[in-house]
Each structure stands twice: as C-alpha cells, then as structure tokens.
C-alpha cells in the first residue's frame, strides 16, 4: 500500500511537471502580450517596455520557466499580474467554497444517482426504468446555466426558501449543490443501473435468493456494494473536475469558488493565476484518482492494491 502511494505520488509529480510545462509554453506562446494588456490603453511604448521588464517577460522563455519552477518548488506561485496579490492567497481564499461545493455536490449526485439507478435496475424494462432513464438523460443534457437559473428563480426568488446568492451558511449551499447534483446524477444513475443489472444476474445473487434471503437484504447487502465500484471511479473524476471550479454554477449563485478566479484570469491573460489554478486542479485530479484507486480494494477485495 505504502509503495503504491509512493509510486503514484512520483507519477503525480511527473504529471504536474508536464502540465506546468505545457500550460506555460501555451500561455506564453499566445499572441496576446500580458504586458500590453496590463499597460492598458493609454500606455506609451516605454510604459509597456517597463512593465514587460519588471515582470521578467523580456527574458527567454526557458529562463522564465526555470525561474517559475524554482519558485514553485518553494511553494511560491508568484503574484497575479493584474491584482499584484500572491496567487496562493487568491486560491486559498476561494478553496473553502470550492471544497464545500465539491463535497456537497458529489453527495447529492451520488445519493440521487444511486437511488434512481437501483430503482431502474430493479424495474428493468418497465415504465419506472424508462422514466428514470429519460429523466437522467434530460439531466445530463440540460445546460447548467438554465437549470441553475431555474432553481434560483423558483426556490430563491419566488418561494424565498433559500438566499439567492452568496456563501457562508448551510442554506447558501443548497441550491448550488442541488444544481450540480441533479445534473450529475444522471451519469451515476445510468452507471449504477448497468452495474446493478450486471450484478443481479450473477450466480451469488441467485443463490442468495434461492436460500430464501429477504429481497431487501439481497439488494442492499449483496447487490449494491458490488455495483459500487464504477461509482468510486466516477467520484474520483468528479473530485478533479469540481476542484477545477464549476464556472457556471459559481457565477449564477455568486459562489466564491476557484472557477470564477480562473475564468476572470483567462479573460485578463493573468498568467500566474491561470498557472496556479491549472496546477491545483491537476493536483486534485491526480489526488482524486489516487483516492479512488486506494478505496477500490476496500470495496472489492478482488482488486489488490498494486
């Protein structure tokens, strides 16, 4: 187990280095010059040259990258070009909101997805099955923006059950998490359904039923745990995705997550922030997958930690 973690961590470092190198080159190869962007519309050529020099943008790309890596190793993500604030400060300020939304969003996804998927599998081919599958299809295809605004309009603006915007209390997280959950649940429902259908045809289920075990126990004790494996992998992927920020949901609910930071930074060619967010979300994806890999053998002893 320890060896696995170490091996994966080594791999993770390699991946992060690759991500850093590729992002760096792509960003600096853009035709948009951050110095011109920063200098604004009234700047003289001298001002632009001064800003370029102060930011070190007049140095060769390789040197800039080495410099960036050198700072990164010491935990220094640099300062934002536009805000002048340390990138780490900006990311840390938004991390709690992102983590909360990630956890609650995944909880809602899994809860809805697992329930619907199981129900559909048990009613395979029937009306309920088709209904669930249609609903989940609509869910995965619906645009986030529309669903988020719809929920906001109904539950916050009209019924006033929840605040329309902001962060801080439990009631603030309900609608954003619900939006993510409802939209993402469709994937889980479909995944659980097919996994369950697969499991329910297995010999040990038939044996259990033949022994006269209660149907309830058959489903919850024997079938569901065995259908969980793909779900764990999907959660791993979602951790990474949600950590990178959920731009649309954050925007609609005024949720102060990392997605908005990244989105604005991209608009402003604020390269240090883009680099920082990219690295942090890559780290999250790597970690999410690692966690999924570590949890898998706990659920299914047939998979040995390798």
């Amino acid at each position, binding site marked *: 187990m320890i060896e696995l973690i170490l091996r994966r961590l080594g791999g993770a470092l390699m991946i992060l280095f690759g991500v850093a190198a590729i992002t760096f080159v792509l960003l600096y190869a853009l035709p*948009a010059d951050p110095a011109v962007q920063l200098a604004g519309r009234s700047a003289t050529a001298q*001002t632009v040259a001064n800003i370029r020099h102060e930011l070190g943008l007049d140095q060769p790309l390789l040197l800039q990258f080495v410099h960036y890596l050198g700072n990164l190793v010491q935990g220094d993500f640099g300062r934002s070009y536009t805000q002048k604030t340390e990138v780490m400060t900006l990311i840390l300020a938004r991390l709690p909101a992102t983590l909360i939304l990630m956890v609650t969003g995944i909880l809602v996804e899994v809860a809805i997805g697992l329930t619907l998927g199981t129900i559909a599998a048990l009613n395979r081919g029937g009306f309920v099955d088709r209904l669930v599958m249609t609903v989940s299809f609509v869910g995965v295809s619906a645009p986030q923006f529309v669903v988020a*605004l719809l929920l906001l309009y109904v539950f916050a603006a009209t019924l006033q059950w929840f605040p329309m915007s902001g962060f801080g209390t439990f009631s603030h997280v309900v609608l954003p998490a619900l939006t993510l959950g409802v939209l993402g649940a469709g994937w889980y429902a479909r995944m659980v359904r097919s996994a369950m259908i697969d499991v329910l045809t297995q010999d040990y289920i038939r044996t259990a039923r033949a022994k006269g075990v209660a149907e309830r126990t058959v489903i919850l004790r024997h079938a569901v745990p065995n259908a969980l494996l793909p779900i764990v992998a999907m959660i791993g992927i979602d951790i990474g995705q949600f950590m990178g920020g959920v731009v649309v949901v954050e925007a609609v609910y005024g949720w102060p997550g990392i997605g908005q930071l990244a989105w604005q930074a991209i608009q402003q060619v604020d390269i240090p922030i883009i680099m920082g967010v990219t690295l942090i979300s890559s780290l999250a994806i790597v970690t999410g997958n690692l966690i999924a890999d570590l949890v898998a053998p706990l659920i299914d002893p047939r998979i040995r930690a390798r």
Partner: protein
Amino acid sequence: MTHWLHRTAIAGLMALTPLVALADETPVKGATIVVTYKDDIATLDPAIGYDWQNWSMIKSLFSRLMEYTPGTADLVPSLAESFEITPDGQTYTFKLRKGVKFSNGREVVASDVKYSIERAVNPKTQGPGAGFFGAISGFDDLSGGKAQSLSGIETPDDYTVVFKLSRPDATFLHVLAINFSSIVPKEVVEAEGQDFGKKPVGSGAFVLKDWVIGQRLVFEKNPNFYVADTPKIDGFTVEVGQEPLVALLRLQQGEVDIAGDGIPPAKFLEIKNGPDAADIIVDGEQLQTGYVAINTRVKPLDDVKVRQALNMAVNKERITRIVNGRATPANQPLPPLMPGYDKDFKGYAYDIEKAKALLAEAGYPDGFTTALYASSTDPNPRIAQALQQDFAAIGVKAEIKALANANVIAAGGTEGEAPMIWSGGMAWIADFPDPSNFYGPILGCAGAVQGGWNWSWYCNKDLDARAIAADSMSDPAKKDERAKLWGTVFTDLMADAPWIPVFNERRVVAKSKRMGGPGNIYIDPTRVINYDAIYVKQ
C-alpha cells in the same frame, strides 16, 4: 496672475457647496447600500487600478489635487486650496489644504504629493498611467530608469507643491484629477509593498474596512473628509461574483441597491417597459465612441476613396438597435459631451449608391475581400455581423474574426495585421474630459507604433502639429478657443476617413427605488458611480 487665485478660490467654494439635492428629496442619514459586480475588484492601488469597476472606488478612497464637480466635467481644486499657472504655462504652483489626514491619522503634506506622482511614474510600480505625466520635467529620466525622482516636482514647504513642465500641457490639470494622481502615504505603501492594492490607505470620502477576497469589499464613510456633507451615505458594500441577471433579481427584491453591470440585454426591454423603469434604470451619456478602425496601411484600405465608401456603407441606426437603442449614431470621433464636439458636422451620410460609385472610382467596382476583427464578448460579434452585412451591400466581403480582447488588441498593434477592427468592448472611452485624450493614443502618429492603440495606423504630421499647438494653450481663459481648435482636428481628419465613427454608447446602471439624486451621479462622466454624491432618499 491674481485673477487665477480669485477664480480658483471661487471654484473651490463651489466645490464645497453640497450638490443641490432634488427638491422633494432629503438624503437619509446613516444609510448603507449594496453594490454588485460580476468580476472581482482587481486592485484598489491608484497607481495600478485602471478598469471601470475599480475606477470609481479608487476615486472615493483617495483624494487628488484637482477634482470634478459631481456629475460634470468641471475641474475644481480639491486637496489643493488654490493654484497658479505662470503665463508660459510651464510652472504650476499648488497650495495644499491644511489639516487633511490619511485614514491612518497622519496629515497629508506636499512631499506625499511628490512621492505619489513619482510612484505612478516609477517603472517598479508597473503602473499603466505613467505616460500621463510625460510633461513633467525629468519624466524621461525616471521612466527610463535613469533617476529615482522627478526633477520637475518641488516642495518648498509642507503645503506648497511646484510642478515644472518641459512643455506646456493644457491637459495638466485634468491629469492631476485622474486616479493615477491620487495621494498615497509613503510609509504604508512601503510597509505593504505589492499588497497595498488590497489594503489601501488614502484621504478620500471613504475608507476600506474589510475585503473578503472573491466575496465582498466593505467601505465606510471617512468622518474626517474635508468636503462638507460628503459622502451622503455611511458606507457601501461591494459584492463581487454576482451574475448580472441575478443581481437584477436581487435588486428588484430590495437586496441590492446598485447593479453595477447594468441590465443584461435579454432583460432590458422587460425592465424598460416595466412599471418601475423610471425609478430603476439610469441611462447616461459617457465620453465614449465606438468605431471601426480602418487600417490605412493595408491594401486596398490605403486608398482614401475606399475608406470613405466604407463610411457611407454603414447603417448606424440599425446598429444602435442591436444595443437596444442604448447608443446614438456618431459622425465624428469626439462624443457629444466632449468639449470640441461639432454639432453642425455632418460626416458621411448612409448612401450605398455613392459608396459603390466611390469604390468603382478607386478601381474596385466589384468590391474586394478583407477582414473585420472584433471582441468576442456580446454584443460585439452581433455588431460585427451587422457591419459585415452593410459592407457586403457594396460588394466588400469582410471575414469576421471575433477574438478575446487581448488578441484583438495585439492584432491592432501589429503593423499590417488587422485590416479593420470594431472597437466595441475595448475602445474608446476618455480618461478625462478633454479632446486631446481622443487623439494622441488612437489617432496621432505616436499611437501608430508596435503595440500602440492607433489601429488605423493613421499618421498625419500636419494634424499632429495642430494637436501640439492646441495642447500648448494652457491658459484656462483660452479654453473655448482651444476646444474649437481641437474640434477642427477631428472633423478635418474625417476627410481621410481613418475611422468609421459608429455610435456613442450610453451606460446603463440599475438602481433600487430608494436611491436618490440625478442620473449623472450614477453615470458620472469622470467616475461612473460617484459614491461621494449618491444617497438614499426618505
């Protein structure tokens, strides 16, 4: 020279007179309001902040030697009590108001003025506004890294600042009123370093109490502010990350007082035709012109007849409808609010037949193929499409390149790259209410350089000379003569047609019903929202 003193003293008195409130309104004392924006506030460092969200906040956090009467473009002394200008227009002497304090309690003195402006110019600050101070003696040395201070700023005593200019600059008083001239306390700037932008200390109408990154900024009234009865609210909270549609919903429910991003196009007609429209919508003119820059160095646009034909091809009325009528068709570079605007100038009327004839004269009876760059943010691609259709009507096929602003700006500043650029979302809104600000960077030879903003690459030496002559007329008594001179520069250059002036866009702010005061303090020509002047009514 005495009449200057006299005049400035009167102007100073006028500045102290509180803005006359509308007859039936009395400001509520002790009110605090909520303002929303979609984007984060980048920085409140006055030497660095240069976007329309932070511009008005920085205005209210800091004070400057000169200021504008709220809602107008009229310059008045502010931190300065009075000033004198020598007849040659090259020496400005300011007397500072005594007893003005930074929010950390220290008095503002002459050396703070010197420090603050040197800081704005110093390359280490990475400030975008350094170039505004180009007329001060010693500018090139400091900007070029050969000196650490500006030899042209002297402080004979704590309450006197003398500026020596290397050339007369009629815009210098405006320059002293822009944010980059805000006075900052050296000891705080040095202690905070680059974090000063998040922990600003000034001597303006408000102080920053709290800043939760990504969520909100809390501003509180500065009880010691030197302008009487200002501000009229006890504070305001800026909530960021607020989607404009949601901000509008919240405003209608009374949770928000000013939706800073205005009304999203999709909602505009609904709100405009709604029962509260008059109370909610503030629609004001600003110093803005949206135009198509025609690259005079790209074939066949280098032919003046072709450029004139393109000017005649554009149906500007139709384009204003794309922005819900929130704009007025333009025929010259200067916006109507700007001194020098010629209201009798006709420009190029919409005339497809004449345009086709001109194209034929130029040797393109069947038109030609070219490209039109535009910002990819709404509504600019839609405007570019309308332009494309207009050009197609005279046989000119323009391929639309809708890109991120930074990429359009990069293309515009590269010689021979972008044949035409629709300026919307990027240019041009004046930094200060003076016509010279509409010339140098965007139409003068100085801007026609790599990385410059003169996307037409238009350079007319004769007009440049007239511009310099106009900017040498620093005697405020010659204000009208100078404005007229400037006006002719802009109308004369239209003969060369380097631009298609398309429209002057008005800004729209949505405010709650309880907010009082005239519209021009919500869309102040020099500030956008004038936090010093707005109030909550009974």
